[in-house]
């Protein structure tokens, strides 16, 4: 629900980083905060426990500047990943314009990833939103770890695709970020769509801006 404020000439879009606990959502925001030019970023707010686990959310506003007369800003939020903070997670999703799912690539976190993805879908549905119809990308984080599952396996579990029902969209769509890979394709007579995915090592910043760039562009397309 991006808000276009014609009075103050502002457009604000809400991006939410979702995913299992300790997956790297806060690390993504911290890296963005560290690297974005001071003039383009606001204050980063973290409501965290004493052990630096996210309690409610992290928040970082990033200004894109004035575009065609509108001051355009992204509000980046993370949710607390731990399972028992679901009430807080649901609140943060209110009014979301785009979502990044930060998956933990480690083999032993596969179940936690799947559970969190299901939880995201359910919480969105409770806000009357369909995850398959809003801007959404997946980031496979911690690719540097020796116990990281192969991307194909993560894709199969977390991004298996859903049927494309709209006939107008039933045509091949190449993944602009991965030449040779498809976002929409036909398999056994059924058109299937997957969301864009990115590999990352958020502590080093690898893939962090690729992910942010992709979700920001998808969100802006829904406004224009």
């Amino acid at each position, binding site marked *: *629900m*991006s*808000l*276009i*404020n*014609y*009075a*103050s000439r502002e*457009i*604000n879009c*809400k991006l939410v980083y979702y995913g299992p606990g300790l997956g790297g959502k806060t690390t993504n925001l911290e890296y963005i905060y560290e690297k*974005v*030019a001071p003039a*383009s970023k*606001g*204050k980063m*707010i973290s*409501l965290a426990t004493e052990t630096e686990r996210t309690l*409610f*959310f992290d*928040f970082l*506003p*990033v200004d*894109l*500047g004035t*575009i*065609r*007369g*509108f001051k*355009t*800003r992204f*509000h980046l*939020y993370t949710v607390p990943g731990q399972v028992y903070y679901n*009430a*807080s997670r649901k*609140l*943060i999703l*209110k*009014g*979301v*314009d785009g979502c990044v799912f930060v998956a933990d690539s480690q083999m032993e976190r596969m179940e936690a990833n799947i559970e969190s993805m299901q939880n995201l879908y359910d919480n969105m*549905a409770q806000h*009357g*939103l*369909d995850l398959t*119809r*809003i801007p959404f990308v997946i980031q496979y984080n911690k690719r540097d770890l020796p116990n990281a599952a192969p991307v194909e396996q993560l894709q199969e579990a977390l991004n298996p695709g859903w049927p494309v029902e709209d006939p107008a969209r039933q045509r091949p769509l190449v993944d602009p970020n991965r030449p040779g890979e498809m976002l929409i394709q036909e398999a056994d007579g059924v058109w299937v769509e997957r969301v864009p995915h990115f590999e990352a090592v958020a502590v080093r910043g690898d893939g962090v*801006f690729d992910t*942010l*760039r992709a979700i*920001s*562009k998808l969100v*802006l*397309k*829904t*406004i*224009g």
Partner: protein
Amino acid sequence: MSGASSWSFREEDAARIGALLNSLLREANARTALLVDRTGQMLATVGEEPRFDPVAFASLTAADFSANDQLARMLGENEFGALFHQGEKDSLYLADVARRVILVVLFDNRTTLGLVKLRVRGVVEELSALFTAMFARETAGEPRVETGFVDEAEDEIDKLFGS
């Protein structure tokens, strides 16, 4: 179910709301009135220029109100229609408007909570009517951004976030 929708806030809305909030501040002898939408975005600020970061303030206000909403439900209440945060010098009074917007009044020792509450109650009714009409309008086909906005925004994204 559908994807996310947008709504807009026009200049004439801002003018009417500004007039209402200005008279609230005068009558309640309060310092600043802010309107924040439930998703955490600042809609309007009237009165003394706040000394804090308004973007962060809006995000925390929405979170505060939402968390308290859930607490209310746990008690079997539909909502807490208003919240009060008392400081040594400055205090905040927050009130729900049409379930989509939060009115925040910042005041100090020059007035009393009772007076602020009383004046807010009146203005909330008028604001609710105004916002309800605004939300009803959202499906009626709004003017959107100019053509070329998306291309230009994409260029800015590439510059800011690296291409």
